[in-house]
């Protein structure tokens, strides 16, 4: 699905990603954990195609394509989805209008017909039920005046609508109470198939009680320094990140 090799990226002349390697196969869920400032959001932004970052070295293969050569919107149209850590508000643009535009742009790119109003509304109904999103929120302006939890749920709702190949969830769990957490996790689990993959960026292991990852990676100082299974997450929860730091510095 995606293969990241020796990725180096910097912003304002400061190197943030320092030779990152990661491979995710179809059907897998990977968790990326790491302390604040490690570069987790940077990785997500670089993959999504945020312009501010300069890629100085490395390559990313996305389903046989050179991801770094694709424009931001084409990456999305090829099936890369980012659930934002801080979802953006767009006043005056209804969630519905936004999603329909998005869906139709993706369809257009694939040479498919525009979705009919009827099919679209049916889909909205189905997918908003999946994340238990109040149907009123669907017609409100994109994220405007949404609570923190509603914004996060809205991201998962959009993901459900767009059915991406690869979804990257950037701290979608932070700021969620336990019920919201369960709902979001439930949404992700239901959308899981052997054709798509998910990268879950998180700070806490508690999300991983609900979304069971196939692999857990530790991102530290711009690199994946340790990989393992769910047990690694529990170990991190117990010991914190200091032992990782000690281990890295010992090398």
């Amino acid at each position, binding site marked *: 699905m995606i293969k990241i090799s020796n990725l180096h990226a910097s912003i304002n002349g400061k190197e943030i990603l320092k030779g990152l390697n990661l491979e995710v196969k179809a059907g897998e869920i990977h968790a990326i954990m790491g302390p604040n400032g490690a570069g987790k959001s940077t990785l997500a932004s670089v993959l*999504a195609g*945020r312009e501010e970052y300069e890629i100085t070295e490395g390559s990313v293969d996305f389903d046989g394509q050179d991801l770094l050569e694709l*424009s*931001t*919107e084409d990456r999305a149209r090829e099936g890369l989805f980012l659930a934002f850590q801080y979802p953006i508000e*767009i006043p*005056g*643009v209804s969630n519905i209008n936004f999603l329909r*535009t*998005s869906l139709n742009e993706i369809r257009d790119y694939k040479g498919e017909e525009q979705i009919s109003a009827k099919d679209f509304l049916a889909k909205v109904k189905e997918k908003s039920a999946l994340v238990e999103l109040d149907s009123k929120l669907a017609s409100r302006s994109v994220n405007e005046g949404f609570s923190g939890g509603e914004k996060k749920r809205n991201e998962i709702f959009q993901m459900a609508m767009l059915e991406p190949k690869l979804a990257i969830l950037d701290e979608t769990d932070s700021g969620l109470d336990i019920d919201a957490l369960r709902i979001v996790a439930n949404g992700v689990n239901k959308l899981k198939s052997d054709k798509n993959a998910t990268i879950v960026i998180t700070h806490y292991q508690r999300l991983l009680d609900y979304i069971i990852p196939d692999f857990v990676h530790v991102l530290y100082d711009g690199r994946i320094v340790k990989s393992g299974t769910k047990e690694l997450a529990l170990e991190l929860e117990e010991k914190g990140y200091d032992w990782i730091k000690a281990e890295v510095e010992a090398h």
Partner: protein
Amino acid sequence: MGYTENELAKDLENQEYKFGFVTDIESDKAPNGLNEDIIRFISAKKNEPEWLLDHRLKAFATWKTMTEPSWAHVHYTKPNMQEICFYSAPKQTKKYESWDDVDPEMKETMKKLGISMEEQKRLTGVAVDFVMDSVSVATSFKSKLNELGIIFCSFSEAVQEHPELVRKHMGTVVPTSDNYYAALNSAVFTDGSFCYIPKGVRCPMELSTYFRINEGGTGQFERTLVVADEGSYVSYLEGCTAPQRDENQLHAAVVELIALENAEIKYSTVQNWYPGNKEGIGGIFNFVTKRGICERNAKISWTQVETGSAVTWKYPSCILKGDNSVGEFYSVAVTNNYQQADTGTKMIHLGKNTKSTIISKGISAGKSQNSYRGLVQIHKNATNARNFSQCDSLLMSDECGAHTFPYIECKNSSAKIEHEATTSKIGEDQIFYCQQRGIHIEKAISLIVNGYCKEVLNQLPMEFAVEAQKLLEISLEGSVG
């Protein structure tokens, strides 16, 4: 790859004027320049009654004593009145009975304007009075309006057919001495539209006029007068687009609205005069005086979407004379490249319990300058007057400017006046968010801008709103490959 703000700004500067084309119809022109003889020529051409010629000559005498105003936040070379042609009319003298009789070349023009025959036929419910240059050449839906006693015709026709109505109301809202350009218009106006809605009649369709400047160097001096008699209602649409030009063209219109007791007038404008090229050469100078007066319980709403002109100077205003009268102003003004706009409104509260609402959305791109200038005036006797103003500015580049000049004069302590203002830059985050959802940059901008203008666009009649959205998109479109 995606876009940075600077690249985006550059692309916005490169957009070409989409409606640039010239129709080749021989004109019947007056010699350039302005003097009493020219005014007599115009009046004679139009076969006007004596009182109207006198009105013109008086206005001309007043105008000669005035100087061009310079308080607006705009800079331009003042037009040389002796180089302007003040009258030009298409050759045909015959009026068209139906759209089918219209000159094919004119039809072509209308097609480019997006008001093709086919579309017109489908758009039942919209009567169009098409003004090419200074003479109205086609009017439709007349009989339907006739049945209700509604008069909707060119200004010249109204002078011939309904002189008493014109004489009674013309100049009562905008006196000839009001300002430099209103005085000029009063002296040399060539044509425009006239509308009268009788007592208690609700006009069943939107009345729509397309204005157009067609002759190089022809000054355009439109005159519009809308009278809504007691308890009547009308929604009036004015839209325009002009061919690409090199020399500056002066446009100084006067619009007067009269809403008698319990009447309501909704006046919507989509303005798209040629703004000049991306170096700031050419383009229309648009100096407009628009004002309405409300008697008791009457309401006037101005809605405007302004995307064109090199220089715009325009303040649709309401005189809230009668008790309980209501004035509204909803505006979107887009400036790009070297465009300059100084626009806003005046709400003059004279009556008790009068209410006004001002929603202004400015969008500046390129090196343009966009100013809001508003006056809310509460007079001594205007007990319980209320005003709410909201003025937002959206900046698309680092080189453009947005300015707000809100003036408040309050002489009655029971008044409630609220003013809100914001300035924001179009968010890179918002654009990135859209792009991450597969939305192309131009569509993303159009989506964000339309969202920002929603409160104003919502005020427009449906088919006009669609056109306005298209115009916003074109105005801010970059040449993204």
